[in-house]
């Protein structure tokens, strides 16, 4: 029996928060190809996850949820991103501690286990993490949970036990309806996340942040894909600055491009 409103009657939203290299950092590959440079590099919540959290908070403010739970899976330092989430307005947070990076199928299985425990009506995730750029986890969770998915959301409206979601697709904007519980992944234009205010940072220190060891969840998190090496992408040759439109058009014509 699936509980629509959580085991304790709470209408809950689970939000995924991944700690990633800040989107403003110019990422560089280590000379030995073993990874990318992370020493002294600013880390932040994945921007799409901040959008997911903002949407969860807005749904709670509109009376569509009672509790927003922020979840991260990663190293102990991810507590920083969860504290930020609590300061933004999440009610509580859970860190599933894992020093090894998890692949999307494993992340989906961890989230499935948490969904079973928490019985959320909605799981809100970023559409992709800006580090591995996989864009897989939400869809995988929805499949394993045997629930609907609404990916790349730019608008979410909840009416009763149905969410109407507008999605950013290649053709334009698509609207679908999904029965709750469901998994929704966020696109850029869903909202603009609020700024964290100083008093909220103080308040967030008193909010519950549970730390759970990955091994205690009984989830198969074994990696399936081995990264052999990282390489910098081929660099484009720097071109020329032309002096005017005539020189540009002449050059394009000479190359047969126009």
């Amino acid at each position, binding site marked *: 029996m699936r509980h629509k409103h959580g085991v304790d009657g709470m209408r809950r939203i689970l939000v995924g928060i991944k700690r990633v290299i800040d989107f403003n950092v110019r990422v560089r590959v280590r000379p030995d190809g073993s990874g990318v440079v992370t020493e002294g590099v600013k880390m932040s919540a994945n921007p799409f996850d901040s959008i997911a959290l903002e949407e969860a908070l807005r749904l709670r403010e509109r009376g569509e949820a009672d509790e927003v739970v922020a979840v991260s899976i990663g190293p102990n330092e991810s507590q920083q991103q969860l504290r930020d989430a609590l300061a933004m307005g999440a009610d509580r947070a859970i860190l599933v501690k894992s020093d090894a990076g998890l692949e999307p199928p494993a992340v989906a299985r961890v989230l499935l286990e948490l969904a079973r425990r928490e019985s959320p009506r909605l799981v809100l995730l970023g559409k992709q993490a800006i580090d591995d750029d996989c864009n897989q986890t939400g869809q995988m969770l929805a*499949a394993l949970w045997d629930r*609907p*998915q609404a990916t790349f959301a730019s608008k979410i409206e909840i009416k009763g036990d149905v969410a109407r979601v507008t999605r950013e697709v290649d053709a334009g904007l698509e609207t679908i309806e999904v029965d709750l519980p469901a998994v929704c992944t966020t696109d850029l234009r869903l909202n603009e996340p609020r700024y964290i205010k100083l008093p909220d940072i103080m308040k967030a220190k008193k909010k519950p942040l549970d730390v759970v060891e990955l091994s205690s969840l009984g989830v198969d998190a074994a990696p399936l894909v081995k990264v052999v090496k*990282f390489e910098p992408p081929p660099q484009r040759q720097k071109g020329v*600055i032309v002096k005017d439109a005539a020189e540009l058009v002449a050059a394009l014509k000479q190359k047969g491009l126009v």
Partner: protein
Amino acid sequence: MNRVLIVAEHADGKLNAAVAKCVACATTIPDAEIRVAVLAADGTDVAAAAAGIQGVSRVLLVKNPANEPALAAVLAPQVAKLSDGAAFVLGPSTTFGKDLMPRVAALVGAPQLSDVMAVESATRFRRPVYAANAIATVEVPAGRQVVATVRVASYQAAPGGGPAPIETVAVDVELPATTRFVSVSAARSDRPDLQTARRVISGGRALGSAENFKVIQSLADRLGAAIGASRAAVDAGYAPNELQVGQTGKIIAPELYFAIGISGAIQHLTGIKDARTIVAVNKDAEAPIFEVADYGLVGDLFTLVPEIEKLL
């Protein structure tokens, strides 16, 4: 023999051009036997188009009214069933494929490789990470089924050939009714499709308004080009979301790309790295777009773009 199953994207009875690019990727897998699955309400024309791509050995047509418009939750269990015996299950890295393929991967218990840009062997692949600031070579276990999306900008469409036989198949799985299509608002346009166009003219924040985007439209008309936009221009409402080019928008590989009034954020450059020739017009000589542009023109776009157009 490595059987490859490609999921065909289609709309309005037309096969998406990305499918022939998936076939091109599949042909680089050693010892590939390529099948294309068409899940449609009718699908006769789509199947015929897929059967006419060189390299395709068989088209599997699944007719079911529930298959259109396409919903990942409805298609995924059918694709999972069809993938029985396939070493690889491929879809395009379009919003259709990105939505569907991970759901398939989870159902069949396979890992997914997103945005495959090169096949090095039956177990080794290359894909971009960190907004393509790094290229990862990844290895999957031999003999294990793999689901992947194909970075369409990395491949030229496979040429015409065949025709391969079309087999209408019944897939006996229960389809969920918990996801329902409501509507799609697609801009109808005579312009070439942004993802497959040979020429693309993109506008950025410096356009200043949706009204001013007509400068871009006019040049695009002159060149028979598709129109694109930077995230900033889309966020500001100057252009619709489906025109966004970049890490989280469309990744394109035209022969000629014009970046007009686009500063060149890393995320935008990710989307145009495979363009053959990049032209940048920007009033800021220090804009990062000039680092990647083959031809840079510094100055006011509202003066320069009409000048360029007149000279063509």
